[in-house]
Every structure is written in structure tokens, then in C-alpha cells.
């Protein structure tokens, strides 16, 4: 269990769902993990759940000065970075006719703009051979009603992976997207009114997935581990789909 031994990772949006699972798995594989998130209480719980080789840094990815503070903290700890996981995303469900300028800007701001600056500001700290992982969504590959701005803004990430692969190749830095399918998290229970309703939501997702079920966050984290580690040393500019076959059939 040491596939990331001596590596330093930063994960934005690492206190819930996929980000949390990734932080836990990376730490279990020997990495030192910086978790960056907005809410101090969630950060505290995350750090406590992982126990060691983890530090929580509070901040809002949408504020450039908070990103600068994150990387200044890592630098002042005397560390460089081997893995950057840009995992924060803003999702909503709004049909085209009802999209407001505000909701449009929110999606593009958090999903497209923020990811660029998250990665840009990490550049001076990246070791040669570092791995950058951008969390996308299957919504960028399919037409899902209500996801106009969300899906379009996440599609930017696949493009970033290609552009940055070409820009950063001389430093051996790999850039890939990970594209999760529907993932089973406590959010489903939080957003439904009863266990029966939650079960119905899960069943509806599962019906569209060849593997017959939703993903567990640990399964997305395991795929992120592959991209973060030397096991994927010849993989860059790609999209790793982790969707139980949903988008391939």
C-alpha cells in the first residue's frame, strides 16, 4: 500500500464524496495530502478521518488570493507537488429556458475558470513528472436535460488536458481528466425525502449502467490513484471514464 510513497498531493474539494475518497486513498498509499475546501468544520472531520500525513487548508477556490495562500502554505512547508487533483465543481439543474446569467456564470466560474487558475498557480511548485487530474463528468459526453451550463463548463476540462499536455510535456508533467459516472454518495439521501425515494433514484441510475449499479466513491478514487501514480507514466492528455460502461453502450 505505498504506490504514492514520498509523494505530495493537493486535492481541492476533498472533504466529501469523490474528493474525500481520493484524499483517504492517497494518504493510505503513502502520500502527504493537502485538502483544500471552504468549510472549516468539514476540513476538521476529513483530517480526523485520515489521521496522519494530511493537512486541511481552508479557502474558496473561486478566490485567486485563497489559491495563492494554499500554494504559499505548501511552499512554506518546504514541499513541492507531485499530484494536483482539481476536484471542485458546481452542479445544478436548470432547463435552458430558465438559465439565469447568475447560474450560467456560477457554473463556468467554478468549473472552467477556477480549474485553470488552480492549476496555473500550482505550476511553480510542481515537480517534473507530476500528475494533474481534473474531475469531469459524464454530463460532458451526453445530453442530460438541465445541464446546459454545467456540462459545457466541464467539457472545458477535457480540452485543458490536451492543451496542458502539450505545454507541460518538457517537464514530463501529465494532465488527464477523470470522468465519473453516477456515484453513490450520501448526497442522494440528503436530496430525497424518504428511503424509498432514495432507493428509486439509485435504481433509476443503475438501470442505465451496464454494471447494474452506481459507483462507489472508492472506485473513482482508485482510478485517480492510477492516474496519480507512476503506473500511468505514459498516459497524458486522456480522459479516463469511470462510468460502469454507461457512455460506451
Amino acid at each position, binding site marked *: 500500500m505505498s504506490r504514492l510513497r514520498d509523494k505530495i498531493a493537493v486535492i481541492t474539494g476533498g472533504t466529501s464524496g469523490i474528493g474525500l475518497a481520493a484524499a483517504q486513498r492517497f494518504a493510505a498509499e503513502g502520500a502527504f495530502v493537502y485538502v483544500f475546501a471552504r468549510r472549516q468544520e468539514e476540513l476538521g472531520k476529513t483530517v480526523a478521518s485520515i489521521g496522519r500525513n494530511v493537512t486541511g487548508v481552508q479557502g474558496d477556490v473561486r478566490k485567486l488570493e485563497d489559491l495563492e495562500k494554499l500554494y504559499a502554505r505548501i511552499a512554506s512547508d518546504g514541499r513541492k507537488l507531485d499530484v494536483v487533483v482539481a476536484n471542485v465543481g458546481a452542479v445544478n439543474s436548470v432547463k435552458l429556458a430558465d438559465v439565469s446569467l447568475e447560474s450560467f456564470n456560477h457554473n463556468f466560474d467554478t468549473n472552467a475558470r477556477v480549474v485553470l487558475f488552480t492549476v496555473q498557480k500550482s505550476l511553480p511548485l510542481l515537480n517534473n513528472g507530476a500528475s494533474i487530474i481534473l474531475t469531469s463528468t459524464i454530463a460532458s459526453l451526453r445530453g442530460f436535460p438541465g445541464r446546459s451550463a454545467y456540462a459545457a463548463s466541464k467539457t472545458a476540462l477535457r480540452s485543458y488536458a490536451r492543451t496542458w499536455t502539450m505545454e507541460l510535456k518538457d517537464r514530463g508533467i501529465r494532465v488527464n481528466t477523470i470522468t465519473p459516472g453516477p456515484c453513490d454518495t450520501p448526497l442522494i439521501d440528503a436530496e430525497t425525502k424518504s428511503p424509498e425515494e432514495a432507493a428509486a433514484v439509485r435504481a433509476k441510475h443503475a438501470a442505465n449502467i451496464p454494471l447494474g449499479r452506481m459507483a462507489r466513491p472508492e472506485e473513482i478514487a482508485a482510478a485517480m490513484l492510477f492516474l496519480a501514480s507512476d503506473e500511468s*507514466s505514459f498516459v497524458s492528455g486522456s480522459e479516463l471514464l*469511470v462510468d460502469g460502461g454507461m457512455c460506451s*453502450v
Partner: protein
Amino acid sequence: MPKFQEKVALVTGGSSGMGLATAKRFVEEGAFVYISGRRQLELDKAVSLIGRSVAGVQGDVSKLADLDRLYARIASEKGKIDILFAGAGIVDPQPLAETTEESFDKVFAINTRGLASTVKKALPLLNDGGAIIVITSIAENKGIPGFTAYSATKAAVRSFVRTWTAELKDRRIRVNAISPGPIDTPIVEQQAPTKEGADQARAQFAAAVPFGRLGRPEEIASAALFLASDEASFVAGVDLPVDGGMSAL
């Protein structure tokens, strides 16, 4: 804890290049591996190199009788297959204007029909929950002079992965492809008759890769390991580029 303890794997095209590297890696992870190939001498060398938990079975994937013999042996010795790596493939570059029927048919017989037969005949032995990995190629998505047949065979294999993901879902068998860029294997020699020619071909291939080098067969093996293992438990139907960023070009 080795990932493939008690598992049985079959690697076609296992006596050289990517297949050999994959067979070696699977054995390191605890699997018993059958390797198949057309040339007995190369097979014997490969078995000797791997050293343990391996058996070589001579055969040509384009010949149904050879496949029957292969699977009869596995059935009687092990009774099951957990992982199938279909790595047998050839290249025979010919500009369209000079393409012969014989060359065209030969490439399709091995790369496409032979691969489909390999998977079809494995089905009775494959365990539910098992994994199938096939080899496509960056050529499937590129226009490369001389590669009419080869590129088409690989595009067909990518299509197989989608169809089989849908067909085998009730058995929870995950089918995925690895799409290699230029990899340093003896297939380069298939395309260049002299040592100087092969060296030149390697240099040309490397120049086309953003990373500036050919991939190592071990880098394909590590992607195969990921896809074959529980680490990829929610990865199905994908075509994973392992190409040093070449698909970002």
C-alpha cells in the same frame, strides 16, 4: 497482498512486446498465466524469461482449431479464466494503391476476426466478474499513410468493446481496450527490414510523441494491470490511450 492471487490469465501475443510484459507483470501479481503465440521458439524463450506460474501454448488466433486446442488445455488444467488479454496483432503497411487482397485479409484475420474468436471461445471458461482487455491503437483515430487495414482493424476492435460491454453485462465481465501509441516492441522490426531501418523508424515514432520517446512495454502492462484488477471495478467499455500524449496532438 498480490492483486491476482489464485487468478488465471490468458495473454495472446504473449511471447514478445506488450503481451510478454503484461504476462510477466500478471505473474508478479500472483496469477498463473497462459501465453500463446505463433512461434514455438519465441514462446519457449518467453516462458523461460518469466520463469514461474506460466505455460506457453503455440497457436494462431486466426485458426479456430488452434483456439480450441488452447482452451481445451486451459479447461483441463485450470478449469477457468479470470483475465483475458488479447494482445495478438500484426501490422502490414501498404499504401491503398498497392494493397493486396492477401495483405488486407491477413491483417483482418488476426487483428479483428481472430480477436473476436479468441474472446468468443473464452466465454464458457471466463468467470463471471472477470476482465477482458483488448489492444486497439492510436492508429484507430488517426490518418496514417499505409495503415488502411491496420487502422480499420483497430477501430473495429474498439467497437467490439462497446458491443461486448452491453452483451456481457449480466455476467459482470468488464471489457476494456488499451490504445497504445508507439511502443518499443519488436513490431517495429515488422515494419523495417534492416537494423538501420528499425532505428530510423523508432526515431521517427519517438519524434511524433509529445513525451519524445516510445512507450515501454511495461507501461502498457501497468495499464493492463489496472484494468484487469479490482482497482478498475467501475471501468467498463473504455478505450484508454497510453500514448505519451499523442492523442492530444
